């Protein structure tokens, strides 16, 4: 059985935050996980590598990037969107 996109993203964020997988819920925010800007850039790199996608993200203007990072659920949705766009 393949691990879902959501599970893999949660695992990436858990590793970045040095937390147990169970502590990374869909409602978690980067702030609540204690992931700072450099940690986020690292996590995005890990996501790109894991799914072989390119995430549009500029650390200078995260809110302008077409990549919603407001919660774990939002990141999962955004990545699923990028995977779908790539497959299309």
């Amino acid at each position, binding site marked *: 059985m393949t691990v879902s996109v959501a599970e893999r993203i949660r695992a990436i964020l858990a590793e970045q935050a040095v937390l147990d997988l169970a502590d990374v819920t869909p409602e978690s925010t980067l702030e609540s996980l204690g992931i700072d*800007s*450099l940690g986020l*850039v690292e996590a*995005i*790199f890990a996501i790109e590598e894991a799914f072989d996608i*390119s995430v549009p*993200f*500029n*650390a*200078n*203007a995260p809110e*302008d990037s077409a990549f919603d990072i407001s919660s774990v659920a939002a990141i999962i949705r955004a990545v699923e969107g990028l995977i779908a766009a790539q497959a299309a």
Partner: protein
Amino acid sequence: MKRVVITGAGTVNALAQDVPGTLKAFAEGRCGITELDIRDKDRLSIKIGGQVHGWDPEVHFNRQQIVLFDKFTQFTLLAARQAVAQSGLNFDGRLGNEAGVVLGTAGGGVNTWDENYRAVYEEGKNRVHPFVVPKLMNNAAASHVSMEFNLRGPSFSVATACASSNHAMGQAFHMVRSGMSRVMLAGGSESMLCFGGIKAWEGLRVMSKEACRPFSLNRNGMVQGEGAAVFVFEDYDHARKRRAEILAEVVGFAMTSDAADIVMPSRQGAARAIAGALRDARIDASEVGYINAHGTGTTANDKTECAAVADVFGPQADHLMISSTKSMHGHLIGGTGAVELLACIMALRDGIIAPTIGYEEPDPECALDVVPNVAREARVEVAISNAFAFGGLNAVLALRRA
């Protein structure tokens, strides 16, 4: 303690391949940032830079030299030739024993690394040219300058990322001020605009795909540049005795370390460096008319830098001008402070303040007079030049009108 003056300047950068051309571009607010012309650009997501176009090494160097000189050394030598020619100095006699060169570079011969990694990894070659090491080493430029001009005193290179040039010029200043050297060539260079050099920066996600807009609310990152600038720092008495033209006096220098974060800048670290340079120069904050900002165009740097300036200058901050010429020539990384010192010299000597171009929207967190888009005329007595490096290493120089 000796007084230290600048008696020569030279540069190669995206705006021009000499000082007059660069100052003219500063005064016109011209942008040297263009579409990059480099190998494998299609695999880069960042496609702009302050590249030196039309660079033909064969105009300046013979074939044996080109084999030995990485581009960062070539840029340096051309800048050094201009600076020494302007100073009118000759180091073949005893002066050469009392003269040296200290240059900043963050990456050294990055093009040489890039080309030779390609050869062995991508093309599968098992042999590289015998001069790869002497070509790529960080001190190659300083060493070739010492050889070309017969500088036989203390020479070395400094690598403190984006503050390399300011640290280098600070060392040269200290050496002349203390009497350790009579003349020092100082400055820095960088040539990182190659596939690997840009790819590395892309990874950090702080680069702009459109433009470098320091202090503007809609800024979205830095833009890399390349080139060099070299200055002749000379003992004032020595310069006066030979009636040399003095471009400006170097009066203060300070360095601090944030001891905090490898990439995020620190307001306190920057403020301590600025205040330290003023203290070292015995200058009152009210005398400073112009600051050449580090002003990278990243969200973090520009607001932190403005806060640091406000801390040091208090209400006086509203009366000084601060601009970032990176908007025109890009961020020359280890060479940037050297090229930017030219804007300080222009402010002091010519009374022209280089603008911050590409400025579109005021940012309440950068509420200083950033000389938006258009150069200005003003009489300036003291100018300072900021450089704040990754790794939290800060270096600030203070110059006075000659």
